């Protein structure tokens, strides 16, 4: 089976001319099917930039990045949009639509899938909200939920389209310790049972235990790759 993420020799720079600054240099990274990889490193080391490249949110400049079997080097905007439908995203903030219920928010991730009908979308959304422990709250709007509950809705939204890959950037940053851990453990369990790979960026040492592998970055380069003990000492 092909790796959901295969990155080779990726170099990326912001700005042009005199303002040009390389923030990624010759990055190599792969994530195996169903694997949970945590990307960590000091602020400004390029973790988020790398994640936006993998998520097809930004065009690749140099190197090769295969995501879910699709090469992103030279990919057109429409191809990138189509690829994003097969990736689940979890952001630092939940970014739920305030005027939709939890269930409708989750179903939004299925609306761009022409193969689903309305009833099916709502049913799958409801089932996933149940799986993240929000069966009682499906008809509430984000404003009526706690921070942890909202992030769990976001987890359900990222998973509902059965993506092959989940990308998450600091998903616990806005949460207290307990709800943070609860959210990542939920994410890990659901991803494991579905065989979904996760690439997760975090500074948060309290959640490193969910990772199969840890990749450390510094100054735009990968400086460590292995088990938690091997990378972090």
């Amino acid at each position, binding site marked *: 089976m092909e790796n959901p993420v295969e990155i080779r020799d990726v170099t990326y720079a912001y700005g042009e001319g005199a303002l040009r600054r390389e923030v990624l240099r010759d990055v190599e990274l792969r994530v195996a099917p169903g694997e949970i990889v945590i990307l960590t490193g000091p602020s400004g080391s390029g973790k988020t930039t790398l994640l936006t490249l993998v998520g097809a949110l930004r065009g690749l400049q140099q190197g090769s990045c295969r995501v879910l079997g699709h090469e992103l080097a030279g990919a057109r905007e429409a191809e990138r*949009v189509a690829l994003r*439908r097969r990736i689940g*995203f979890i952001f630092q903030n939940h970014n739920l639509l305030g005027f939709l219920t939890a269930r409708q928010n989750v179903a939004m991730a299925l609306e761009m899938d022409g193969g689903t009908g309305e009833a099916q979308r709502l049913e799958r959304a409801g089932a996933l909200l149940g799986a993240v422990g929000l069966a009682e709250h499906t008809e509430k709007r984000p404003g009526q939920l706690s921070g942890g509950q909202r992030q769990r809705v976001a987890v359900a939204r990222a998973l509902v389209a059965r993506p092959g890959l989940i990308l998450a950037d600091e998903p616990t940053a806005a949460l207290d310790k307990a709800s943070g851990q609860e959210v990542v453990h939920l994410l890990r369990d659901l991803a494991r049972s579905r065989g979904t790979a996760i690439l997760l960026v975090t500074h948060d040492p309290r959640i490193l235990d969910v990772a199969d592998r840890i990749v450390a970055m510094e100054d735009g380069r990968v400086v460590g790759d292995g088990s938690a003990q091997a990378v972090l000492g």
Partner: protein
Amino acid sequence: MNAMNDIRPALRGAVPQPGFLTGSWLALRLAWRQLRSERARLASAIAGVMFACVLVFMQLGFRAALFESATTLISAMRADLFLMSPMTLASFRPETIPRVRVSQALGVEAVQAAVPVYLAQASFRNPETGKRRMIQLIGFDAEAGVLDLPGLSAMREALKQPDTIAFDTRSRPEFGPVAQIFAGQGPFPVQIGNREMRVVGMVELGSSFGADGNAVLSEVNFRRAVRERPQALVDLAAIRLKPGADLLAAQAALRAIMPPDVAVLTQEELRRHELRYWEEATPIGFIFSFGSLMGLIVGMVIVYQILFSDIAGHLKEYATLKAMGYSNGHLSRVVLGAAGILAVLGFVPGTIASALLYSVVAEATFLPLSLGADRALTVFAMIFAMCAAAGLLAVRKLRDADPADMF
């Protein structure tokens, strides 16, 4: 859509995109859910569209009423051809032609009858308040039956009596309760110019921008009322042709024998001549078009503001949707869908309000204001275009929602 389908095979395991109709429906539903969630904003957007709608309805209504009322007199005349001075700009201010042209017209084989028509403005004294106001006098041979107005034929004999007039019940109310007095006590005296005349009946014609009210009277009585008018001059000649006569041939024959001091016009030509005066020689037509345009621009700005702030206030959410695989095109459909919804939601109450205003204004001005299906359709097209333009302007703001900024 098809371009998207073409690249699909290259993208293994790709998700099939919803079809155009399903996609549009989903976009429209999302737009509605968002609009609905902010009641105050929705209400002000609807009020903005309503405002534009009412303004355009009123402007178009006035414009059409002006043009229609300007020609009611001409339309009411039972004649095939008219002789008129080429100098006449509009019938409320006619230039005269020699009376002899009327009898000359009879020299053309196809002509059955030629009747002089006299037009003048004279002051009419309100029988209640005594205030004077200019009224349009329409003088003609009562026998000739050239003017086809409801009620007129019945009072043919009465109008032959000296110093009699028939009053237009659809004149502006400033002339006083003439119809009510007449209904109560029958014929009664009024003052026209310096002369006392008797109201002997009622006709229905209608006020126009050129005439606040009308009084119909015989040729002889017209001369009595308008003393300064020399006998040898008339304002218009109405010509009836023999049955089966060819209109254009008769017009050509008349032109051939007439000196250049008269123009020979068909009824339709005279109507258009009158319309052209109001449309071109006065700024009135322009003013109404300009008024409509202003209403549409104000409405567009309001709708644009609402749509723009809806996007600007939800940039993160829009960027999230883009990250989730919503294309810019689909999100544009959401914004345009919101514009379309606002167009409909503003148009419906706007049309109802306009219909009410029409009846109020028609009652006050006696202008023929009517809200027909074709005008409603025109206004809807304008309002829809206005909202679409606002939507297209607002859509540009979507570019600021960059999913790469989301992490």
